[in-house]
């Protein structure tokens, strides 16, 4: 029976795709985002640019044919650092948001389907986590454990999972009372089965939206932390680290090639992720479609 329902959903997927493509901005954003991801993750394979190669004789040179985006304060190529920096920033954003979604899905489904004490305890934990500003906690964790990619991903995931948790828990609470679930339970279905065949198809849409929102938040968090000197080590290329050069007024005023590229990359990527998220939300949530 549930397989039949899944089949029905597959049929409904087509209108979802159609609804997404009707959202022009989302489509444009999706295309641009795909291009950015392709450049960032496959670009390094295609070019010989080295983001770590320092050359003091090329100190803060403006854009030229050798260095299309100029060079930074260690004489490194800004374009190379932008590409590799995007890899760092997006890897952090994507892995932190996926980790947060997995954690949020697991715990949210557990709380929603089980209810009772488990639900109360988990929901209070979520309340506690959400009552603290994430940035402050992450600054604390980064200061205690030292800034590294793992620290950042783990601490961001640990603080951002409540969004996914709430979405999944709410869905589960209403699903739990539905006849299909009661019937499946009556046939002896265990929690993992229910999660796979009943909960997941129901929440995958909203969950993807949550992933996009959290990914955007995490890209911004990384940038903010590295800008403040609390994120990744200074010599690791990342958009936030590149931007931190602009703390110097000299750079801000006279050397726009050092901060416009990473700034535009951060702003653009975050906007595109959000537009795509918007499109997916409208596509998967018929109640909100126009």
């Amino acid at each position: 029976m549930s397989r039949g329902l899944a089949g029905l959903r597959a049929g409904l997927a087509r209108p979802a795709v159609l609804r997404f493509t009707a959202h022009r901005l989302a489509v444009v954003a999706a295309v641009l985002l795909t291009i950015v991801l392709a450049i960032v993750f496959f670009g390094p394979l295609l070019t010989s640019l080295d983001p770590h190669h320092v050359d003091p004789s090329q100190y803060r040179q403006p854009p030229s044919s050798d260095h299309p985006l100029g060079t930074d304060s260690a004489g490194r190529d800004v374009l190379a650092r932008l590409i590799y920096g995007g890899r760092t920033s997006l890897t952090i954003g994507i892995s932190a948001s996926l980790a947060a979604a997995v954690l949020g899905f697991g715990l949210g489904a557990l709380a929603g389907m089980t209810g009772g004490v488990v639900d109360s305890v988990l929901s209070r934990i979520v309340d506690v986590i959400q009552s603290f500003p994430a940035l402050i906690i992450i600054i604390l964790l980064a200061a205690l454990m030292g800034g590294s990619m793992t620290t950042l991903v783990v601490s961001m995931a640990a603080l951002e999972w409540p969004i996914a948790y709430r979405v999944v828990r709410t869905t589960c609470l209403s699903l739990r009372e539905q006849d299909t679930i009661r019937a499946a339970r009556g046939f002896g279905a265990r929690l993992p089965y229910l999660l796979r065949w009943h909960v997941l198809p129901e929440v995958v849409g909203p969950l993807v939206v949550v992933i996009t929102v959290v990914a955007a938040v995490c890209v911004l968090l990384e940038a903010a932390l590295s800008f403040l000197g609390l994120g990744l080590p200074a010599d690791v290329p990342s958009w936030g680290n590149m931007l931190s050069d602009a703390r110097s007024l000299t750079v801000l005023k006279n050397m726009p090639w050092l901060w416009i590229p990473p700034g535009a990359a951060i702003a653009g990527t975050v906007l595109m992720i959000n537009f795509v998220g918007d499109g997916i939300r409208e596509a998967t949530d018929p109640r909100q479609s126009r």
Partner: protein
Amino acid sequence: MKRIFPVVTLCLVAAFAGCSVGDDQQSGPKDGDSGAGGTAHVALYTQPTTFSPVVTISGADQLVQQLQWDPLFAVDTGGELVPRLAGSWKPNADATQWTITLRDDVTWSDGEPITGEDVAFTFEVYADPSTGSLSTARFANIAGVAEYTAGKADSISGVTVDGQSVTVDLVNPQASFALGIAEPIVPILPEHALDALPRKDLATSKFFREPSVGSGPYVFDHWVNDDKVAFTANQHYRDELALEGVDATFLDSDVAEAQIQTGEIDYAQISAAAAEDLSGASGVEVLSATGGSIMGLHSALESGLLGDVRVRQAIMHAIDRQALVDTVLAGHGQVINTIAFGPNADVPSDVDTYAYDPDRARELLEEAGWDPSKKVRLEIIPGLRDREQVVDIVAGQLREVGIDAEVKRFDQAGLTTAIGDRDFDLTISGYGFFNGDPSSMAGRVRCDLFAPNGSNLVHYCNEDLDQLLEDAEATTDDQKRAAIYEQAQAIVNRDVPVILLFAPDALAATSSAFHGFELNPLPNQAFWNAAEWSKEG
């Protein structure tokens, strides 16, 4: 979509909070208050940790201590000693005895007179390792110190007090004794406030966090954690003071450079790039002075990582030091190849200049059997843009020759711990007064001056060099002395106890309304003439 905006705002708020430290609501005197001279706002690149001169080697600590405590004499902008508490100081003919006479008109900020007893007390505290003193080695040459520290005497027999006059007997002749207690600065401590405290608790006592008594022109008023330390004019200071107080605010150089232009601060140490940028700005004066300090990378040599001299030589060849001076310092400095440098330092003409040569570096590393998988930390206290850039470039150039270097940031306390634990690979640090007499190198290389009790931070030891330095101190013939120092310089040049990068010029910016500030070429002595500061408006 909606959820994102609070976070964006939060990020922006946090980011800009780093750029401008808000006005402090609780500070008392403000500029232009009722006929008073106003408050000078000076920037420190990192937060000071203690007012105890005995247990610190940090520049920020030394600066705030210069406001709080007067030394016997200070080093002026020309590198000469000028009187502070002492009116006169002179050695006997063979420099085995020094007589220091205090001025009669000097008092503590609580009105008590400053006497020779305070000087004797201060020397005891510095010489006594149980106080946690980082300077015991500098006082070890005073007669009777050994008996005193061994607990066999109640006081140092070589220090005799007669009213305002203090006579110091030395074990070995030392013509540089006065300079040795002027740089790094040795402030005189108040015996009447500290004598009752157990010596071993001195360093951590509340007194050195919030001192109630001072002798300098501006004395401690209050801390604002992570923001500033506020000082008020010492009412008992011997000279008239123009300012009502001084606020020392903790700002990294980027922020300080911005705030000097907005007039929020009156003095800041600045980066070379900013010196170019600020030199045309209105309301800002850019000051520079040829520096006597050195900037180098320091390793715990006994840890073995850089114990092999060929590795250290390789690092010298791997770094394009001239390019660092030309670009990051914008020419405000010079490459050096010996610790003591300059025309009077008896540097032989044939020293190795360690030209930038990555191939030679790789050869040396191979000879030394360097393992490219070994991680090497480049430790830095952030806050000064020039230094951060230097470290980034050095890390890149070391990786290019096969040394897996990574930058590690420390705060002052973390670095002090690492140094205490002998657990540091390549720490960038700048200090000292090395462009005068070659004897200035001794503190950094002698076997008996190992940190923490001496300033031989790296624990370098070469007995031949020690012998030469000892011979030089005992020689009165200038030519012979120069010949001995040339040999010593050759050893330092070859052994590379410290990876010498360059001698930076001192660079600072002051607001045009701030007067009396004279830039000292030694960055840790920047507040040497604070008593003469004044401010318009």
